[in-house]
């Protein structure tokens, strides 16, 4: 379903964020991407949702070679992918509720059917009481949960979560991991980037370890 073949990503002609990566992730897998700061975790995820193109090699998602994918198809690709951004990427001028609403309406889902969906998802993450708050009125962890809710709400085929617990306490992190496991059971491929090696280890899932752009291990640990 997701396939990297000899993929390198070089920024600005000399900074190799990723070097010769070969990985294959099947539908329904749960994969951690670990590594220290600057290892290339975010870059790896960005290649999957075609925010960047590889400098070398081929990235295939749903069978499409992303390098040759027609521009018009990109939105359709992204609609199948839920993304939790490391920096949240919430709209500052909309409330938590409106942020979720926006992400659904932008892909053409009519206003009438989304109300219940939004409140359910927010309740599930424990931020139901914050639905009318603007991002600047939310604590760091609450913002992260809104970003998480936005990724979950569209029932994606692939969930990409970039450091989704960086601002959340250990108990909260464990809860979120449970939610990820649940949606993984329903068939969604989950890829989670984190520097929290301990969390990754304790979950006994496949773990892709990066360092300075190199793949240093791949498999359960």
């Amino acid at each position, binding site marked *: 379903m997701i396939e990297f073949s000899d993929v390198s990503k070089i920024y600005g002609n000399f900074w190799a964020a990723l070097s010769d990566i070969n990985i294959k992730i099947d539908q329904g897998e749960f994969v951690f991407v670990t590594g220290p700061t600057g290892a290339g975790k975010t870059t790896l995820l960005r290649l999957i949702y075609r925010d960047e193109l590889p400098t070398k090699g081929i990235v295939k998602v749903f069978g499409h070679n992303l390098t040759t994918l027609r521009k*018009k198809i990109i939105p359709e690709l992204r609609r199948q992918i839920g993304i939790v*951004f490391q920096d949240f990427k919430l709209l500052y001028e909309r409330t938590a509720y409106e942020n979720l609403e926006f992400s659904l309406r*932008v892909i*053409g889902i009519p206003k009438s059917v989304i109300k219940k969906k939004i409140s359910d998802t927010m309740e599930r993450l424990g931020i139901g009481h914050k639905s009318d708050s603007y991002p600047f009125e939310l604590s760091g962890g609450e913002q992260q949960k809104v970003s998480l809710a936005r990724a979950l709400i569209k029932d994606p085929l692939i969930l990409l979560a970039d450091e989704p617990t960086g601002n959340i306490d250990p108990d909260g992190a464990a809860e979120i991991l449970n939610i990820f496991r649940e949606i993984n059971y329903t068939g969604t491929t989950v890829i989670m980037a984190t520097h929290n090696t301990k969390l990754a280890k304790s979950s006994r899932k496949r773990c892709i370890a990066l360092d300075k752009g190199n793949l240093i291990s791949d498999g359960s640990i």
Partner: protein
Amino acid sequence: MAAFNFILSESARNLIRNRGSFLLSTIVQAICLLLFSLFVLITINIFRFIGGAQRRIEVYAFLYDKADSTSLMENIRLLRGVADVRYVSKEEALAELKEELKETTSLVEVLGKNPLPASFRIQLEPGSRTLEELERIEEKISILPGIREVWSGKEIIRRLAKAVRLVIGIDIALLVIVAISIVFISFQTVESTILLRSREIEIMRLVGASESTVRSPFLLEGLVQGFAGGIIASLLVTAFYQITAVQTQIIVFPYLTLFVTNIVFGCILGLIGSNIALTRILK
């Protein structure tokens, strides 16, 4: 398209958030269009005046007192380019002068004898109202026996031709300037909206919005702005119409045409401007 409502509400949101610069740009666009309308108006009236003046071009041929007016008239009437010839006797000429000098009636009354000559007033066919034709006809008439002097509005024709060229030149220049200005203003406004919303656009794309969903609100903004500018310009033109044309009734004022033209023009140029902004900023 399910996103249509969404696009509309997003556009409205944009406009409300940018209402200040929207207002400013709209006013400037309206002024541009108004300027253009006024110039079109001036042009139309200049052309009407020129047309009128050309239609009124006459060649005057003054006769010696003893000339044979009937046969002369026949000869002139046969000349190529001559449409009509009218004979004005000495008495009629005096009556005309009296008419023209209205204010000094007493002076005319005390004249002993009539010093004015009889004349032919020769009207030309439309195709012969040019400089060369005029010269040819003037020459042909002046060699006829019994003609004392021939006078034609050559100088007037020359000036009119010059005026027409000038007016058309200015018109085209102004059209280009106004069009560029309006496109530039739309471009400017939409560009700054895009910059202000660049984060929103990025996020829209990342969550899977199609290109048309991303672009439509901005195109709509350019369109609305052009439309608003056109409407304002049209209203100002209407006000101007009420003040001048209706009251004085001297000038031609194709007021409905101008009204529609302003709006159509504004919309098209607004769309072009926002389109340029979109293709320049959103690769």
